[in-house]
């Protein structure tokens, strides 16, 4: 990329830099981590179209206006705002405007081997597990993550002890509360011990009509032989900007499945960085996004095969109605040592709206010879013949379309292992289609 001299900062960048300058000097490792992130943001600013990783999502334009940091949320209003995935009966921890709300969080009777604390609490108590926070760093500067590292003050720290099996999923439910545009930052750390079995859920929502910004980052340290599932549901208001970063480090012979479901936000970008650092692990990163109006949804992922014998699978589905825009950027890197890697990536888009747009960039970067890697990308309208078949049997057009869309996203949602969560997501997809008809 050409180095560019950018003497002018946007108002939002200026405001962010000013906010970062108020970070206190001195302090422990975390304070230093914040300052380093702040410095890299001050140097690099917000990415724009000429930054390859943000080619299709011009963050500098999207975050043109500066918004203040979100203040504390009223408990009752936070509670009223929570709607996502309640039916799955997960253990719910509520994060409103970037801070854990203890009154709404189910922290009683934790199963043996499960530990959940707020990040702010952990910082106050000098929790030694914080030494593992900020350990996962992408190879290249990521503005959203840098801002999160510098500005997040709270979030959730979850640890599952080695060998523990936690049946009930834990849901970190993020909600925005307020009438005026504001930005909230939350940071989570999830440590899954060796051989543990655990399901982690994240959800994001907020009030319609408010141009708020959510910036969330979660680090996952997945131990050897762990069996770990992540399910995310993002249904932010159609006026919100949603940025999230997921960082994974996966140990030996682990089984990891992550699924992201997105229907919300005016602009959403999820960046996923996964490093496979233990041999013979199996990972899958899947997702589905249903977009309409002028929504913009970007899923970007980097899967780094650093060691031999791992298997990775990616399956992403986009359904694009009206003039929405879907973006999928996936990159599988296979390092020289990572022989016997098996990597497959697939991105499929179904374009319903005449003005909808899909941008696919599935990349492979391979340095080992004894590997099997492939990727595929398709994009197109609903198959006319399938529609005709259904309509010939008396099914009205919209309904026929719905059935086909349902089958299309179903393939991805079916990969969710937890019954309650899968049913909840299927219901949400059906709801989206009903609202369309």
């Amino acid at each position, binding site marked *: *990329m*050409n180095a560019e001299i950018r003497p002018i900062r946007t108002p939002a960048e200026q405001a962010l830099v000013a906010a970062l300058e108020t970070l206190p000097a001195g302090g422990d490792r975390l304070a230093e981590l914040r300052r380093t992130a702040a410095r890299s943001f001050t140097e690099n600013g917000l990415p724009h179209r000429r930054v*390859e990783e943000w080619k299709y999502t011009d963050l500098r334009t999207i975050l043109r206006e500066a918004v203040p940091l979100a203040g504390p949320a009223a408990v009752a209003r936070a509670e009223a705002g929570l709607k996502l995935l309640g039916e799955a009966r997960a253990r719910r921890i509520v994060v409103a405007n970037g801070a854990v709300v203890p009154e709404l969080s189910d922290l009683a009777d934790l199963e043996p081997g499960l530990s959940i604390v707020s990040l702010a609490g952990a910082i106050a108590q000098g929790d030694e597990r914080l030494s593992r926070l900020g350990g996962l760093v992408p190879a290249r500067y990521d503005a959203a993550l840098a801002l999160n590292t510098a500005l997040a003050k709270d979030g959730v720290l979850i640890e599952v002890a080695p060998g523990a099996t936690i049946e009930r999923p834990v849901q970190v439910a993020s909600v925005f509360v307020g009438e005026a545009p504001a930005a909230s930052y939350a940071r989570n750390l999830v440590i899954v011990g060796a051989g543990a079995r655990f399901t982690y859920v994240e959800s994001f929502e907020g009030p319609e009509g408010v141009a708020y910004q959510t910036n969330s980052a979660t680090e996952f340290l997945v131990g050897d032989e762990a069996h770990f599932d992540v399910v995310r549901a993002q249904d932010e208001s159609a006026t919100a900007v949603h940025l999230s970063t997921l960082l994974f480090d996966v140990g030996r012979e682990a089984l990891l499945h992550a699924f992201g479901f997105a229907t919300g936000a005016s602009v959403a970008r999820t960046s996923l960085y996964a490093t496979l650092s233990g041999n013979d692990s199996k990972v899958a990163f899947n997702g589905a996004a249903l977009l309409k109006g002028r929504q913009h949804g970007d899923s970007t992922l980097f899967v780094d095969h650093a060691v031999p014998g791992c298997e990775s699978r990616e399956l992403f589905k986009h359904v694009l109605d009206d003039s929405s825009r879907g973006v999928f950027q996936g990159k599988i890197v296979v390092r*020289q040592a990572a*022989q016997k890697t098996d990597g497959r990536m697939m991105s499929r*888009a179904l*374009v*319903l*709206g*005449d*003005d*909808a*747009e*899909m*941008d*696919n*960039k*599935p*990349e*492979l*970067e*391979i*340095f*080992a*010879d*004894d*590997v*099997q*890697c*492939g*990727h*595929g*990308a*398709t*994009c*197109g*309208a609903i198959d006319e013949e399938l529609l005709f078949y259904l309509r010939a049997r008396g099914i009205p057009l919209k309904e026929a379309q719905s059935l086909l869309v349902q089958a299309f996203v179903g393939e991805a949602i079916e990969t969710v292992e937890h019954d309650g969560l899968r049913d909840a997501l299927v219901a949400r997809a059906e709801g989206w289609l009903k609202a369309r008809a």
Partner: protein
Amino acid sequence: MPAVQETVEQVRSIDVDQYKYGFFTDIESEKAPKGLTEDTIRFISAKKDEPEWMLEWRLEAFRRWQTMREPEWARVSYPPIAYQELYYYSAPKRKDGPKSIDDIDPEILKTYEKLGIPLRERDALLGIESTGGSKVAVDAVFDSVSVATTFKEELARAGVIFMPISEAIREYPELVRKYLGSVVPVTDNFFATLNSAVFSDGSFVYVPKGVRCPMELSTYFRINERNTGQFERTLIIADEGAYVSYLEGCTAPMRDENQLHAAVVELVALADAEIKYSTVQNWYPGDKDGKGGIFNFVTKRGDCRGDRSKISWTQVETGSAITWKYPSCILRGDESRGEFYSIAISNGHQQVDSGTKMIHLGKNTTSRIISKGIAAGHSDNTYRGLVSAHRKATGARNFTNCDSLLIGDKCGAHTVPYIESKNSSAQFEHEATTSKISEDQLFYCRQRGLDPEEATALIVNGFVKDVLQQLPMEFAVEAQKLISVSLEGSVG
């Protein structure tokens, strides 16, 4: 053939720098002063006896070029090019322009003979009778000038214009002026702009309305002189309903330093016309330590300007130290079609960053991309491509298949496709795979008595079959041989 002898030969040939065309022709040449200034451009323009507008065009490009930066996005790395240390023009010395083939310096004729390119029509005919193929007209470009063009008269009878572009600028200025720079604008990119300023020769083809070009046309590029860059410019126009098949070949001597080759190729297909452009690129790739070799920074683009027009690119890339090349199609006319078939083989320390762009603008446009990358030795092989559908490109269709094969564990194969669809009725499909030669396939071949080299060549030939089939017959045979040569020494 006695097996023993064969084995001996094969053992001898197992070396990366088995480049067969690496000889140098010792011939007196005339060069422009070293470096690049407006004077250099005036010198080239004056040498070519160009009209004023052409000189202006070049100077404008040069001024623009001075404000541009070399692109850095490709996955290649090379030491900075000292643009002022190059010679931008080099031509074999001669008293007058050759009137007939007999006036050409015998040294040059010998060079082309050695390369297997017959410049005498009589020889060409003889050679062809023995292979049973069809006639091929050749334009031979030696450093900065075209030294011979064969079968000109026969082509002229059909109305086809086939001549060096420097001649075309003088003889058909209206045609050249109308189309030159209309597909690859002067300001397109760093190397294309440089080429616009200093291009010296290349081929010009015009096939008039409804004419099917009676023979294959071909240009053979040869870089001979030390420290010179070759900047050729090719312009091919197929008028309504015309058809032409064009072949391009290239070689250079073996040298320690890197040499720059920055060409521009422009194709224009009007309504119902078809252009088939095939390349066998065999520039010197450098020695086994990565020293020397050609930097091949080429801009190739075709414009399917008319409805139902078709442009097809087929390329076999085995040479060059660095390849930076993206033959593209702009599918402007309704129902136009673009095709790209490519085999890129890298060995030693070669770096390839190549691919295509299919830009769908018209309705019901279709395109097809088949790319096969083979990386061996310490090389890096990248496919980089764009498929895009404009909002108005209703019914656009694309199918892309790019496969990579890795031989050895020191090389890299990369795929960077961009697929952008702005139209709901566009159907894009893309698939890519990377793998190594399967042990089962190797075992099967070896069990039947093939040695590892032969087995690899056989499997690789199978791997690239889809592309080889697209090549004209004469080229396919050569390409097949090239593939086995490039991969020699890469097994194990």
